[in-house]
């Protein structure tokens, strides 16, 4: 909104690049989160009894459902920081939104693959054009478009503004796609709640969700760190090229 403001902030960085030294993400967070996933999966597999209709197939729930939750959470982060970027024009908000988008797209792809692997034995089909499946696929495609837009735009300011707009509007589309395909046809069961889930499954699902949340936090932080480093390097290179002896 204020072009003077953004000029100031970038020239500040040009003056002193070390002031914006990006923080280092501890590798221990990676070990802890990966370890948490191993523990949670082992616990869930060992404690859950065979399900009435599905038998042991129910165990795919422990990876499929948390992956879907993390997808939505990541894209919510994209939406929030995209809107804040358009509002306040802080460069770091753009980088964080982009990091969350890449992580979210990864989890989104994983959710889709796991859903197909589960759907084949449970429903008899790899894919149906049903509410959950279609909207999850559309979500994936929207954020693939987002990442492609970033890849094909060179100017950093333009990249930030455009991807923030695409991220915010894309996220806005998600509930509508979900509603529309829900009316269209439905096969995927409604979301389970503790009331419809045997307590012996609930605990395992919660543990797995927490473990995958840790993984997601590590992924986004690490990706953000990389984005900050790359941007800081670019700024220094620009300053050097402009004759900042």
């Amino acid at each position, binding site marked *: 909104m204020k072009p003077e403001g953004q000029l100031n902030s970038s020239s500040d960085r040009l003056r002193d690049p070390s002031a914006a030294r990006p923080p280092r993400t501890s590798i221990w967070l990676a070990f802890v989160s990966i370890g948490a996933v191993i523990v949670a999966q082992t616990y869930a597999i060992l404690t859950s009894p065979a399900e009435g209709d599905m038998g042991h197939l129910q165990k795919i729930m422990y990876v499929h459902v948390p992956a879907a939750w993390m997808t939505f959470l990541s894209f919510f982060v994209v939406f929030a920081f995209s809107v804040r970027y*358009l509002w306040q024009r802080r460069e770091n908000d753009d980088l964080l939104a982009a990091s969350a988008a890449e992580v979210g797209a990864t989890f989104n792809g994983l959710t889709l693959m796991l859903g197909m692997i589960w759907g084949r034995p449970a429903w008899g089909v790899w894919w149906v054009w049903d509410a959950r499946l279609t909207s999850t696929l559309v979500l994936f495609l929207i954020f693939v478009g987002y990442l*492609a*837009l970033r890849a094909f*735009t060179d100017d950093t300011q333009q990249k930030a503004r455009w991807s*923030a707009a695409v991220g915010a509007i894309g996220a806005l*589309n998600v509930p509508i796609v979900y509603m529309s395909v829900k009316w269209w046809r439905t096969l995927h069961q409604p979301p389970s709640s503790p009331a419809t889930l045997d307590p012996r499954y609930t605990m395992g699902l919660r543990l797995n969700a927490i473990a995958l949340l840790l993984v997601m936090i590590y992924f986004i932080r690490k990706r953000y760190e990389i984005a900050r480093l790359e941007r800081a390097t670019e700024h220094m290179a620009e300053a050097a090229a402009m004759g900042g002896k």
Partner: protein
Amino acid sequence: MTWRDDWRRVRAIARKDVTTELRAKAGFNSVASLGVTILILLGLALGPDAEALRNASVGAVWLATLFSGVLAFNRSFQVELESGALEPLLLYPGPRWTIFAGKLLGNLIFLTLMVAIVVAAGIVLFGVQIPADWPSLIGVLALGVVGLVVLGTFYASMASRSRAREVLLPLLLFPMLVPVLLAATTASKALLGADVMHEAGAWIRLLVAYDLVFLIATFIAFEHVIEA
């Protein structure tokens, strides 16, 4: 700045776009004939079964509109960029949203003409029987075209200025258009048939809601996108 001035700007941009497109050789004629060509190809691909063709007619018309629409949207900004007219346009006094509104209006007129041709061709080629309730069918078409034009113009304003515009616009636009496509085709099919499941009304309301949400959202976001 009064409303009257803004409206004049919007009209001027729209008129300029429409006249240049209609005059240019590569403009309206080629885009419209692409739409009809896609219809013919779909008709051939779907085989000679008359019943199957009739069932597929709605989807075929919408797909042909979509593909030729993408060309039209990209052109509306590309022409501006090639002649270097976008920068001076941004320098004119007055609010930025009028540029978007002008482009929107221009594309809407352009696409309405094209849809009219594609639909006429579709009715003939696919042997569609026009139902008694044809005004609502035109309403569905209009709502669908508005949704298509709003998002298409918005994304084209970015994609046409990026490095890979031919790929990027469909990549960004098509997933966003899923609700429009779904609502428009389901409602049209229901209106063409007996509407046993009573779904047309709900889909039309979804289209209205969709058009409204994205009209507002793109107007808010356009200012950030167009900044040089």
